[in-house]
């Protein structure tokens, strides 16, 4: 039975995702929401969502629906941000997490995004990028539209992109975002094309 399980797992298309964003934006929390609940539930649901600032980076591998995801949870602290670029070439999708309540640092996020998009490894590769406007539960948080205006996202023309508001504490909005990503990603073991066609028709 174990063998059958592993066989079925290996069939699933594999997707590498780079998760970036400023420190404290909620990257680790978003990933925690993506992970299958029963793995997380080990230490009583919500309590596990308490995160500590990531040091360097962390790799998370798990199954999501019929995809096998490998997430690189990068640290957002400025002294570790130089690590991001080492992962640009090996991924099929990018998740950019924004703290929509941290308006004063949107300019820093914008600067980091510009650095990322102008990097040759990203530029050569039209992989999709999803923006999670996280912490939408906080009073005075900006809407997803405001975030995309501040970051001037409409200037991205050479790749699919999408902004979605979310709350990484409750998981609200995360599924929608990842579903969009699943439909635009070109998995390393390509099988998703058909699925994408289907989505277009809908």
């Amino acid at each position, binding site marked *: 039975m174990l063998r059958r399980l592993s066989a079925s797992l290996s069939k699933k298309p594999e997707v590498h995702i780079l998760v970036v964003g*400023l*420190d*404290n934006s909620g990257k680790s929390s978003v990933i925690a929401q993506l992970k299958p609940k029963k793995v997380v539930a080990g230490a009583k649901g919500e309590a596990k969502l308490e995160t500590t600032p990531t040091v360097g980076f962390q790799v998370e591998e798990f199954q999501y629906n019929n995809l096998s995801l490998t997430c690189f949870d990068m640290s957002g602290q*400025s*002294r570790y*941000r*130089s690590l991001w670029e080492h992962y640009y070439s090996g991924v099929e999708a990018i998740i950019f997490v924004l703290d929509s309540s*941290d*308006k*004063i*640092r*949107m*300019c*820093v996020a*914008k*600067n*980091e995004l510009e*650095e990322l998009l102008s990097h040759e490894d990203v530029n050569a590769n039209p992989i999709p990028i999803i923006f999670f406007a996280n912490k939408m539960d906080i009073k*005075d948080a900006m809407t997803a539209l405001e975030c995309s205006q501040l970051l001037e996202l409409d200037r991205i023309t050479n790749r699919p992109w999408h902004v979605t508001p979310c709350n990484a504490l409750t998981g609200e909005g995360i599924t929608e975002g990842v579903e969009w990503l699943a439909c635009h990603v070109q998995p390393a073991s390509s099988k998703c094309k058909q699925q994408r066609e289907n989505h277009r028709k809908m």
Partner: protein
Amino acid sequence: MAPWLHAHYDKLAGIRAHAGGIALAEVEGGEGALVVADYARKLRVFKGTRQTAEIPLPPSSEIPSGVCGFYMDDKKIPAIGVASGPHLYVFRCLRPYHKYTAPPVEADALEAKVWRSEEMSPADIRTALAAAHAEGAKLGPRSLAMLPLTSESKQRAHVERVSKIPTTVETTITCTTTLPKASEEPHAMSCVVLGTESRKVIVLEPSAKAALCEVEVPAPPAILRAAGCFDVDWRVYVACRDARVYTITIGDHRGTAVIRKPHLELEAQPAGLVVKDKHLYVATADSRVACYLLKGRRHKVFSLAMPAPVTNMELLVVRKARQVTVLLVALANGEVRVYRDKDLVDVLRVNEVVAAMTSGTYGREDNTLILVTQNGSLLVKMLPRTATFEVGSTTAKGGPPPEQDVPLDIPKRTRLYLDQIDREKANAPAIFRTFQKDALKLKIATATAYLQLRDDDTANPDDNTANDDDDDNNNNNNTAAAALTLAAKVNGLGPFFHIVLEVRLNAGLTSPLRDLPVVLSYDPDLYRTSRPAATLPLLIPGIAAHAIFEIECIDESKPAHPIAISVLGHEEEEEEEGSDDDDDDDDDGDDDGDKPLVSSTLIMPQSETLD
């Protein structure tokens, strides 16, 4: 490349504060906030893009002179101190916590004795005070107010009014800073350091309830900067209003303080003070920033001239792969200059005058620069991760120009020259006197010649207008009433001509005229000049003023065309005339606007093309 990210700009923040009146400090919840001691007698707290708190100071308080954040104990609860008048109001968790009052100044001993004596009459008091004043005693305001009172009743009223007030005088805190107590860790205890109008520098206990030590400096402090740690070794650099920078340090044993020699003599009043590593940077009111060595005799390392007066000076620590500290200098022309040592590495143009500036951690971002302008706007600038402030990264290259290193070609001093120097040294007074005598003689000769000239001119007025030595094309059309005589002639064969004008004041007009405009009007299809108008030099009676116009004939096929020359009057005069009689203002104004003092038409020669 301008490296700054524009995080926030609030034109309507309405902040009224000067250097020292804003600070980045923790308030509550761990994130850096901006605290402002506003002139409106309020403590204002900004976080992110918004103001999050506003606490009024007591209604009787003065305009605040400084604000600082510190830690009173080991509990890591941040406290904010606001200096206003003689008090330091301490806030904790954004609630008033307590108040420290700087020690009042004791009145002059003699003065105090006079006021305390019961039996002296008001007149006697006044005489005694006047005597003390004459001897140079520094009297307090009550005594100074007494001195000019001559009438008995007024004196009595004044004495009665002030007799209940104690003779001590409250002082005013002029500036503040903080000094770590035992360690320089981020949340460790720190002491507030105060400078007062009574020329004291006071280091307070971390609890801000009493002084740890105090020192009297020769003049009221204007700017304080601290370095080190109170329990280990520390320095407080004090820029005072006597244009000197004093260094205060630990005395013979812990808990005492002394002024350490030597002090620094500045060439002008201090406008900014910053301590960086082993150097002290001082900005002065003469638009200069100088760097001094802290060790030894305070040797001046370099001095930079700024294009405008300095309003603020701060350090910005850029934490990158390598930590870089740059010097920020805000100028009155709306620039913030970034220096790395003496090299200008960036200029940030704010276009408003920066009233207060500070840098540090704001929100979650280190390397943040906060600017408050004189219009009350708040600007928040951040640095991108890739900013380097490398020397030579701006077009405006700093440092001395390369010519400075080329030695000047100075000739050798000759024997003759040295002898001359000796002679001049020996006979300086005599040489000076001879020179003065000759200079005076020259002045008299000039004045006599001028008078002579004027008298001659008034005697035979018309002998110099006939200037018709030029053969074919000279023409004067003088209006009879004109105050001026205009003579014009054309030099040249073409297509380039020189029109030479000669203008004189007419006889009878004795006052000089200055800056009269003269214009040419010509057919623009035929002639061209780069300068169709000019201003005449000062016209004085009897001396002719000249003006030369270069004009080019651009179409030589057409017949030559005359050119009109007009000397115009002054606009002010026109205005005066216009306002004299308002009734016919219309005709008058129009006429005056165009009426020249004198005009003339110059027949131009046909341009003769050379084959």
